[in-house]
């Protein structure tokens, strides 16, 4: 008992010293570098995400998703309009540059678009190429509304290596009107049926069912009269179309409304991880041991000897 009383605190001192030295074991952590590309075309202004516009909802979910990523993961940011994406920031480490990423994400605006078109399959391919060049997976946020509508030949395919990633579908399932803005950015109402193009441009091969369309004439009107009316002035999320696009490109599909957790789960399933060695500190273990030994040392004094009274 007497020996223990002297040895225990010395042992505690040794354990605490080991804890201070910071021993650790090698661990592995999976990190996924990601290029986020956000569709900023006009249909993203539709306010059908619980009252918020699709773009605002995307900003919110993405900011929260970035905040939930482990340090060491790198995130880049770009946007999509017309037929290509434009990278604003190449992937940066999120813990160092979280504020910058959040600031740039907050600065994403439909006014940045240099063209009003929204050719999603082309843009997606461009973004995938860009992501592959940056050695990152792709998170592509869009509502799937092609403007102008897809040609009769269908969307562009993908025949290259895919870096993987997620197509994040923004918007609701019910078609909603698209806000209209003037030159100075003031909202001036909604797009009407006559403001938009409802069918592909009359170029390329005609649709196979053209013969059944009104006004069809093999020489004078090979496309028929199918583009006079439609619902392209309303926008809903084209989940089926986006799932198909994602599937062809080795990507997953998730809904923006499902939040950052669903995005993370889908990303984990569809993007390769970069394994990095991490240092897991054992200091807390040694510290806890030292504390236990110290308490034992404190209690090692026999009760009668703590207060010697006859």
């Amino acid at each position, binding site marked *: 008992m007497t020996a223990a009383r002297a040895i225990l605190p010395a042992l*505690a001192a040794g354990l605490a010293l080991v804890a201070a030295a910071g021993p650790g074991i090698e661990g592995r952590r999976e990190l996924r570098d990601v290029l986020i590309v956000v569709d900023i075309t006009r249909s993203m202004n539709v306010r059908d995400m619980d009252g918020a516009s699709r773009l605002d909802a995307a900003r919110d979910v993405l900011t929260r998703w970035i905040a939930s990523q482990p340090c060491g993961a790198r995130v880049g940011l770009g946007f999509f309009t017309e037929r290509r994406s434009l990278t604003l920031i190449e992937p940066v480490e999120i813990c*160092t540059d979280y504020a910058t990423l959040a600031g740039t994400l907050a600065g994403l605006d439909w006014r940045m678009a240099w063209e009003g078109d929204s050719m999603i399959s082309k843009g997606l391919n461009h973004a995938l190429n860009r992501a592959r060049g940056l050695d990152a997976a792709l998170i592509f946020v869009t509502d799937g509304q092609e403007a102008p509508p897809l040609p009769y030949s269908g969307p562009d395919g993908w025949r290259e290596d895919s870096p993987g990633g997620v197509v994040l579908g923004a918007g609701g399932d019910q078609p909603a009107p698209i806000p209209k803005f003037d030159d100075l950015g003031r909202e001036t109402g909604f797009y009407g049926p006559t403001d938009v193009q409802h069918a592909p441009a009359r170029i390329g091969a005609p649709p196979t069912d053209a013969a059944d369309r009104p006004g069809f004439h093999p020489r004078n009107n090979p496309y028929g009269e199918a583009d006079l009316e439609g619902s392209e002035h309303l926008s809903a999320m084209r989940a089926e179309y986006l799932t198909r696009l994602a599937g062809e490109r080795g990507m997953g599909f998730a809904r923006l409304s499902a939040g950052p957790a669903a995005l993370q789960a889908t990303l984990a399933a569809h993007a390769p991880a970069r394994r990095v060695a991490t240092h897991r500190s054992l200091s807390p273990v040694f510290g806890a041991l030292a504390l236990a030994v110290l308490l034992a040392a404190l209690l090692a004094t026999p009760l009668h000897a703590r207060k010697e009274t006859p």
Partner: protein
Amino acid sequence: MIGFAWPPALFALPLLLLPLVIRWLRASAVPRLDLRAVEGRAVGPLLVALAMLAPAALILGLAQPYLRGGSTAYRGIGTNLVLLIDRSSSMDDTFAGRSPQGGDESKAAAARRILLDFIARRPDDRIGIAAFSTAPMLVLPMTESRTAIAAAVAALAEPGLSQTDVGRGLTLAMGMAHEASASDSRAVVLVSDGAAVIAPEVQTALRNLAARRQVNIYWLYLRTKGAKGIFEVPEPGQADTPHLRPERHLHIFLQSLGLPYHAFEADSPGAVEDAVTEIGRMESRPILTRRPVPRRDLAWACHLLASLCCAALAAARWLERRYAPRRPAPLLVPA
């Protein structure tokens, strides 16, 4: 500010009250201490303090305290700099006006390389980046983070877009410079290889911005071979309209804003470098900026302190002795 990686450990802190109840050394009874004038009052409290400090430090170490990272303000030499970059597709050509071949360097690549050098030499600048083609784009909000700036400049390597709308780009850049700081110097560096007509309403907006707050404006004009210079006054009889000579008229417009304004015409990478160096020389003023402070782990210090305390306590146990050894003699002297 101190944070804890595992705050639940702090619930064990009441343990450090134990040494107030349980003494570290075993006591030996000595009658009438008051008549014995024993000195050394400080040793007892010191031991109690050590016995309290040791578990406290260990518990704190378990909670893994750290100094929150963040940034600290300091005075440096530099400026609040907004780089306004032309992303029109013509920037991807060389100064000779061709597509880059072999060892050629495009105007965009030269600008990127020289700007990265420039930024690397100026650690105190706060830098924001805006770009423009048909539409102005906020690329990077004002930041001190060198990695973010480098990533944003590197992203400029992507092929450019269609047209040039310099007016709206200037509006965005000047707005960013305005918001950057209320007191320190602000500068906008416009890097472009061309200009366009500025719409009248944009001109008004720019004049309003210029009247509100002072911003130094630099225009680094990357002049392609064969293009007209900004300082060239057309010979009499030649047309001199904004549509035919947009660069010259942008220069005149910027001069008319009443702000400190310098234009540089560069027709080779070397000239760009000279111009950038000159801008750097002019934009060296005291600036209140922020320096990132990395998060610093403090647990090791707690453990070290605990180790020292425990060692001292062990030494106390090792030195422990009674006032007099307890060896009672027999009651009766043996006959």
